């Protein structure tokens, strides 16, 4: 089967001398690259959409995980693939800041991709152990003010959204907190719930279910206003009006992919995101659907890069 599909790919590549248009897309299998491991949010959402897309376009759509090179390898491969719409990469809300922190990475997020559409979004959440003495976000800020650097929060690697949000809250509130890096949410959750670290900053997709089960208490979430899936948790912006950030997932392909192909895929995704069962499954994973035009996704990337640049410069965050 492997040999067969390789042969088919070669033949399809040879046939691509003529420019491709929407009516002859897809010619063959469409591959979606997720640069996280199985089980991560891009992977799960990617597989959900891939199964729907397969039904709609009549060619297999498969998700491949490529975690090699911290995600750079898979993203690079898509940016350098034949621009015919058969290779898609899932970008995330963490991609813009990575571009800033690693200017030497072998592609430019703003120039080397054809954005298709964002898929879904979710806020980041600040939470504490149920028995923590920290009552609210203003209370947290007051404590951090009283003891600079003593309040600890869990984050992902340096430059992750977790880290940047923690620093951004610090900048706007004029306080200093210490970020403790973890590989993934579960060990971070264990240390927060047993009181070793004060605050957990993590994705809504992980934290909201824990709050629902009363294993954590939500202090604030980073959506621009109330978040539909967490009505009881105040927005960070109620205390620090500038601080709003939604993490997102989005599809991109190699630049120079013909516009009709981009538009066709955009329309398919839009229709899939409008299906009731997809909406319901996304909600169960803590996401809200967020279809967009290719231009809106491009603008979002540029806007977020500008926004993170301010945080990164103010705090002197570097990957070194």
């Amino acid at each position, binding site marked *: 089967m492997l040999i067969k599909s390789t042969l088919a790919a070669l033949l399809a590549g040879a046939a691509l001398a003529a420019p491709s248009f929407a009516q002859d897309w897809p010619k063959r299998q469409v591959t979606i690259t997720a640069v996280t491991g*199985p*089980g991560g949010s891009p992977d799960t959402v990617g597989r*959900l959409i891939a*199964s729907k897309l397969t039904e709609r376009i009549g060619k297999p759509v498969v998700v491949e995980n490529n*975690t090699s*090179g*911290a995600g750079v390898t898979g993203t690079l491969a898509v940016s350098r693939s034949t621009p015919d719409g058969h290779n898609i990469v899932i970008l995330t809300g963490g991609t813009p800041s990575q571009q800033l922190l690693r200017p030497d990475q072998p592609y430019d997020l703003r120039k080397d991709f054809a954005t298709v559409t964002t898929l879904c979004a979710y806020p980041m959440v600040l939470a504490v152990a149920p028995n923590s003495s920290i009552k609210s976000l203003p209370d947290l800020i007051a404590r951090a003010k009283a003891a600079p650097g003593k309040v600890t929060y869990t984050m992902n690697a340096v430059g992750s959204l977790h880290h940047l949000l923690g620093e951004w809250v610090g900048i706007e509130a004029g306080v200093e907190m210490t970020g403790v890096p973890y590989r993934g949410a579960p060990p971070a959750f264990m240390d927060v719930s047993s009181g070793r670290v004060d605050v957990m900053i993590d994705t809504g997709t992980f934290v909201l279910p824990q709050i629902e089960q009363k294993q954590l208490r939500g202090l604030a979430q980073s959506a621009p206003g109330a978040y539909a899936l967490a009505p009881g948790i105040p927005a960070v912006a109620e205390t620090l009006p500038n601080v709003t950030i939604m993490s997102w997932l989005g599809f991109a392909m190699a630049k120079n992919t013909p516009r009709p192909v981009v538009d066709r895929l955009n329309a398919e995704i839009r229709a899939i995101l409008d299906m009731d069962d997809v909406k319901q499954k996304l909600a169960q994973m803590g996401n809200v659907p967020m279809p967009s035009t290719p231009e809106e996704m491009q603008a979002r990337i540029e806007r977020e890069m500008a926004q993170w640049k301010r945080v990164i410069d103010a705090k002197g965050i570097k990957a070194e």
Partner: protein
Amino acid sequence: MDLVANLALGASVALSGENLLYCLIGSLLGTLIGVLPGVGPVATIAMLLPITFTLQPTGALIMLAGIYYGAQYGGSTTAILVNLPGEASSIVTCLDGHAMARQGRAGPALAIAAIGSFFAGCVATLVVAVVSAPLVSLARAFGPAEYFALMTLGLVLTVVLARGSPLKAVAMILLGVLLSLVGTDIHTGAERLTFGVKWLAGGFDFVPLAMGVFGLSEIISNLEKGEGKPQEKLADKVHGLMPTFADLKDSAPAILRGTALGAVLGVLPGASSMIASFASYTLEKKIAKDPSRFGKGAIEGVAGPESANNAGAQTSFIPMLTLGIPSNSVMALMIGAMTIQGIVPGPMVMEKQPSLFWGVIVSMWVGNAMLVIINLPLIGIWVRLLDVPYRLLFPAILLLCSIGVYSLNNEPTQVLLTAAAGVLGYLFIKLGCEPAPLLLGFVLGDMMEENLRRAMQISRGDPLAILTSPICAVLLGASVLLIASMVLPSIARGREKLVEE
């Protein structure tokens, strides 16, 4: 009693025709992918995830769980037959399991692995049902400092594990630790030891390294010894498919001890089922009357670790079922499957979905029973595999390895890396250095470093915080004692020599 009622409820769910079928499919599929080198449960479950969207949640979880523990069974088969550890937890099985296979005792090795795993699976299932709650508080008591201490003990145990020169073992551990540090450091974001090579930014993967230094190097050295010639076979002479009474008598205590170790360590998220398997090996070697038999086909060296890793695989469900947090990437996928079904994983599952919770638990026992029934008759077939002329067997192994490694990341570089690791492993055989300590150092090294730095960050640079935690004190104390037990005898010997002179 509540427990009986709960288990009865679980049995009624797990023994329904439909769920029995899912359980069978899961365990069969798991065994199959476990046997295929490189193809692990993570990739399989990820591929099956979209299919489970349309299944009943209970059936879906039963099947996914079956794949997971089925793969543990299957993994030991390749470790024993051809010295290929598919997962970290079967490294230890390679040591004595493969040695037994070379002596023509592959049958008893496979059988004892299956029997030990079954016993451990039964006990651990009961543990999950009865004492989940207290074990969770144990998991909560483990913070970065405690994990650091556990990893330290793990590394010290690794030295004890070595067969030959302790100095060489230490060197191999350090090399393993160094290899594990390659890649992006999460504390600073810096790329370390990558020499500017981009695909190294994520570090090395375990599977290519393990396959290279164990499996491929073994193939190279077999070919060198002339096993590629016609008529040559892997095993001298196959005698006996089933373990003898003496085998069972030797194995029984090892199985009991392995089960206990595995059940406790499995609750801790991270590399614990692997630590469990080699902690069990070390224990068996330490208390054996004749430790020199280990590495040369001691059946306890298969029975203990196999029981330990299977018990650990079962109890690693505890953090998921009770806290909703995954202890490894397979569990993360299962949590994904649950949420997409509209079940929020965590402490409320037991109250809100009792039939799902107890159904899955009872299905684990059912699945383990099925695995024994499937695997015991298969042993005859597996052992016949060793009768296949080596010149036909080794290209097949190579091909399967390459496909498996490629499918990990869909990356050709991984296959090249496996080949390079194979050459390195061959070099190690020539130098008389063992690969097991290298791999254990590789698995533990970066976790140990990360946890130490995390602990120091939380305690604001106060090293006393690590020493004053009672768990740390016990674990670090045990490490010191173990080192002393290794070093002191040789010092004493040196002194005697001095006195004589």
